[in-house]
């Protein structure tokens, strides 16, 4: 990862910068956990699970983009990450094309 940090020579300042961005993400993640836990107890019928998964996707995106530094990564790395999801989507779609269309 050849990312240069704009160091101004003061370790304490650098340290604070690092804490700040990551702490913000952590706080958002904690909020999302509490949110998803709370929503699980609301009677939303068949929307409960999709909503929970949406929140999970948001958490995964935060971790991926910030903690895993996808926002700073070169395009072929983002391509690798994106390719995984495309292939997983196809695997699900074509398998369910069978499951969902069986007679009886």
């Amino acid at each position, binding site marked *: 990862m050849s990312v240069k940090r704009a160091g101004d020579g003061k370790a304490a300042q650098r340290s604070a910068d690092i804490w700040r961005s990551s702490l913000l993400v952590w706080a958002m993640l904690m909020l999302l956990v509490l949110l998803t836990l709370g929503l699980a107890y609301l009677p939303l019928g068949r929307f409960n699970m999709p909503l929970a998964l949406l929140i999970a996707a948001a958490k995964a995106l935060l971790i991926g983009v910030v903690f895993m530094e996808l926002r700073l990564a070169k395009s*072929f790395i983002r391509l690798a990450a994106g*390719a*995984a999801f495309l*292939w997983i989507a*196809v*695997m699900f779609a*074509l*398998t369910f*094309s*069978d*499951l*969902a*269309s*069986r*007679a009886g």
Partner: protein
Amino acid sequence: MTAAALHDEYPPQAASYLRDGHSLWSWLASTDHKRIAILYAISITMFFFVGAVAIAIVRVELVNPNGQFLSDDTYNKLFTLHGIVMVWFFLIPSIPNTFGNFLLPLMIGAPDVAFPRLNLFSWYLNIAGGLFTLYAVVAGGVDTGWTFYTPFSTMFSNSHVLAAAAGVFVAGFGSIATGVNFIVTIHMLRTRGMAWFRLPLFVWSLYATSLVLVLATPVLAVTLLLVIAERWFGFPIFDPTHGGDPLLFQHLFWFYSHPAVYIMILPAMGVVTEVITCFARRRVFGYTFMVYAMVAIAGIGFFVWGHHMFVSGQSPYASLIFSFLSFVVAVPSAIKVFNWTATLYRGQITFEAPMLYALGFIGLFTIGGLTGLFLASIPIDVQVHDTYFVVAHFHYIMVGGSVSAFFAALHFWWPKITGKLYDEAWARFAAILMFFGFNFTFFPQFLLGYLGNPRRYHVYPPEFQVYHVMSSTGASVLAAAYLLPPIYLIWSLLYGKSSGDNPWGATGLEWTTRSPPPKHNFLAPPTIETGPYEYHEKGEAPEAGPRVPHRAQSEPR
């Protein structure tokens, strides 16, 4: 010029990789991609013999419609062994891990692959997986077929499914490691001037193969893990009595195993392009289309797996989608066959052994591919599914195709790897014998399947005996043809003439360095200024007459 004198001429840093350490440990702990390639070559040859002996016994047994000396159970275990060993321990590693490992850094001008220690570790994973599998054999065998279908494998088989599944699981991670290594190597270690569209097509084929290795193999791993969990811990997953669906296993299994066949064929296609361009003295026809075709095969190949399940209970609507996509995936393969043919046109063709194998590939792969289209058509598949027709189809591609290409590669790059020449007459004879033996073995199987002889059956109706006898006779010719190369190649190692750096006059970057190459491949990193296959000027065909001296890819214009 004697071999010794040739070696003395070169400076010390050009000392052959073969001379860099002579102990067993220097080989087993080597991170040099060339030595690792040879480690793989030795192990896949040993596995090949195991798989070949298994099926030799089967073919002898099948001469008689009622069997001869095997029990049904042993018969099942033998064809299972043949499938598992040949697929995972011979075909999948064959070209990528031997020729891919040896040649990839050389072809892109790099001193090694991106992660040399991971490369060595991948071989050990392969060996560990192989040992698990061999244990399964020695302990009594597996009888599920190489496809491990549930619920038989999870609930009813009394054979050593766990050990075999574990073996394949472990070996799979070696495949993934190889895929990761090759992708990063190709992205990041190309020498100056080696742009993506100047890469030889063998490198592109390794890239496409590596994409498949990385994306498909983990799904196989998890599928086998679920089979192990169900069988070992009794956790119902595919168990219909608990509401599970055995067909789910097939979906996950074939999600890997169909792309797996592209792992087996794409590198072979890459080899064929390298050999044909060299021995026809021609640039490849349609380089860009060849690249996109390979990437398309790798991609679309992931969307066709349901064609293995037309009669398993899959919904007709899903079957329709899979059938359509299976027709689509044939198109890029066909494009490649057309382009190879066009490459031959107006070439100065000579028939050295590698070329004989490559030409054989084109014919046999075409037959295999066309019969694949028959199978993609649902009505035909309903008739011939689980018959010898399918067996013949995939052997035409995997043996007629991939194994032919493997031998083409072996003969083409033998001088580069060993610095020696082999006996051309014996090599041509073996190639032709292999072609005839192969067709005698497998063509009758198309007829058998069409007429209704199921596969994996120990006994068969007597009216099919003539085809089985033809097939078994062909198999003995094929076996003889396979035994010839080890003999004359070992002879070549011991007594063969020195080959010089570029005995074929080929243009690849690997031919510009010594044969055998020095430990770090090149004395200085080469700079590339031209594309591959510059056997003649663009737009002009080489006319018949004396061979024009070639110019290799890195030599100045």
